[in-house]
């Protein structure tokens, strides 16, 4: 697989870093000349994945979140968000729309949004070991004459 560029970030699971994470990925993605809509989708998907790690992976403590963004062949932006938190016992259930263990403050729509705002979503998790969420989104070449 041809990787033309990448960034790697590491930050503590503090909610104030949600804004930083989505802005950093958006700034990195800018080199692919995305539309406002594509950029909005990317920021939203990253925000959901990072929030999940903050709320669910490390519910009672501050842990580390690793974020990687790569530009792959065919103008594909791949984003990986990894934690070493408590893991998801049942991924299928967690991905159901409206399912949440986060109470009234959460809507249970995080995975649904990640899924519909990207082309590919993969979730790997092991209870007690952590979760890795990988998302890919192809950035279209814009028509000439815009």
């Amino acid at each position, binding site marked *: 697989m041809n990787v033309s560029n990448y960034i790697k970030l590491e930050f503590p699971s503090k909610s104030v870093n949600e804004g930083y994470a989505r802005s950093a990925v958006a700034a990195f993605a800018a080199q692919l000349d995305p539309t406002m809509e594509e950029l909005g989708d990317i920021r939203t998907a990253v925000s959901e994945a990072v929030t999940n790690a903050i*709320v669910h992976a490390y519910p009672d403590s501050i842990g580390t979140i690793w974020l990687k963004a790569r530009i792959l062949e065919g103008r594909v932006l791949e984003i990986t968000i990894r934690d070493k938190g408590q893991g998801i016992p049942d991924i299928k259930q967690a991905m159901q729309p409206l399912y949440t263990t986060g109470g009234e403050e959460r809507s249970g729509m995080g995975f649904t949004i990640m899924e519909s705002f990207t082309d590919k979503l993969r979730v790997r998790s092991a209870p007690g070991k952590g979760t890795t969420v990988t998302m890919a989104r192809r950035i279209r070449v814009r028509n000439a004459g815009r």
Partner: protein
Amino acid sequence: MNIASAYENGKLTLYLQGELDHHSARTAMRAIEQELEQSLARECVLDMSGLSFMDSSGIALILKAHKLTAAQGGKVWIEHPSRQALRVMETSGIERIVPIAQETGKE
């Protein structure tokens, strides 16, 4: 994020400003709760013209506003969402519960 408000003839308008994510949602929720309880408004408008970003935390916030307003016998709706906020709301299906006043298209 910030919330400014205006009240007129039983209608409370809440102007959401800045970025609405999980980090800002708790404060925002408390502010909205307070505004609704104090005003006892029959109608509540969530004006999103100043909102530069919203993720699914916003959906939980809208549902909360809906619940509180409904408990007071009133209704809530959304005005002036950005394209990005509109996409999040459409994906979640929230417009089946809380109407979105249409005239969008701004980035």
